[in-house]
């Protein structure tokens, strides 16, 4: 009479036991790792836009300041994207027949706005105020990356809570002098820790309450 359990039954039983112990931890680890991956955070993902706007050409090539278009960034919580009229300040005279710019011309002609796909998205339970960051010495490229080299706009940082907190816990590592906020070429100098500490004092940044919940979750 053959054995009820073949020789490999031992292996199966041992594997199931090991899996029972290991899989919960492995599964949890996989979930945590996935939530931090680019797939979920959207980092480095280039979104499709109605017009393939090139920051590399306009900022890097032509030297436009960020504030020419994103004019609300120094005063308002939202930086915003420019109205169609801003595009037409130049494109009523340049590239007036290009097919790529047809949506812009149609938008102006029909008085319908352009529906841009938001790249740097935050959840609705987060309150983010651009103007205070600009006022306190955080430059555009610190969070938005090398925008002047992006031929198509993408999210350059994970924008997770942990990423924000890393700076809120120690802003000195990311501060820059007030005249360099909109400088796309700025990189932290070798003595950033020392410079940053001085800047934090000059900007009146108080670390004690920067990580309070209600700063961002209002």
């Amino acid at each position, binding site marked *: 009479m053959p054995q009820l359990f073949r020789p490999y039954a031992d292996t199966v039983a041992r594997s199931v036991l090991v899996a029972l112990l290991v899989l919960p931890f492995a599964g949890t680890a996989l979930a945590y790792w996935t939530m931090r991956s680019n797939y979920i955070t959207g980092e480095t993902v280039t979104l499709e836009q109605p017009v393939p706007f090139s920051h590399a050409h306009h900022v890097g090539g032509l030297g436009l300041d960020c504030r020419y278009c994103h004019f609300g960034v120094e005063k308002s919580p939202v930086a915003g994207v420019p*109205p169609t009229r801003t595009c037409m300040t130049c494109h009523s005279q340049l590239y007036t027949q290009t097919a790529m710019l047809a949506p812009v011309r149609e938008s102006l002609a029909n008085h319908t706005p352009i529906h841009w796909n938001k790249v740097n998205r935050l959840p609705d339970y987060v309150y983010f105020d651009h103007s205070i960051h600009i006022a306190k010495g955080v430059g555009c490229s610190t969070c938005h990356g090398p925008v002047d080299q992006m031929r198509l706009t993408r999210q350059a940082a994970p924008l997770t809570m942990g990423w924000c907190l890393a700076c809120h816990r120690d802003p000195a590592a990311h501060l820059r002098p007030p005249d360099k906020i909109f400088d796309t070429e700025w990189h932290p100098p070798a003595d950033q820790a020392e410079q940053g500490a001085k800047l934090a004092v000059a900007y009146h940044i108080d670390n004690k309450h920067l990580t309070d919940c209600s700063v961002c979750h209002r």
Partner: protein
Amino acid sequence: MASGVALALASCGRPPEEIVPYVDMPERLTPGIPLRFATALALGGYARGVIVTSIEGRPIKVEGNPRHPASLGATDVFCEAAVLSLCDPDRLKAVRRGDEIAAWSAFEAALLAQMEQERARHGAGLRILTTRVT
């Protein structure tokens, strides 16, 4: 535990969002910060000087204008409630003929037809209905 892991993996990151800016932005307007206008609201034919706070073109608060000699910065109940009439969601958004939405051109055609009749009578039957005008 397993359902928690499954749910975490199934949440697909950030939902797509759109930014829809103006085509022609009203001057001095910055999205996100309120703009205050000195204006007048009429009650019974008389204007009351008020200051209206609006965000992106939507009025949210009516306050008195301290420089107005009649109110010296105060408002009455009707002023405070006027926010609801300024931004009334029940207000018609399109031309209507009876209960159906019609085009502006249909309205103009009907109006012109009526005006032709009035022209024949030298406007004898024409009346203009307004609120109280002083």
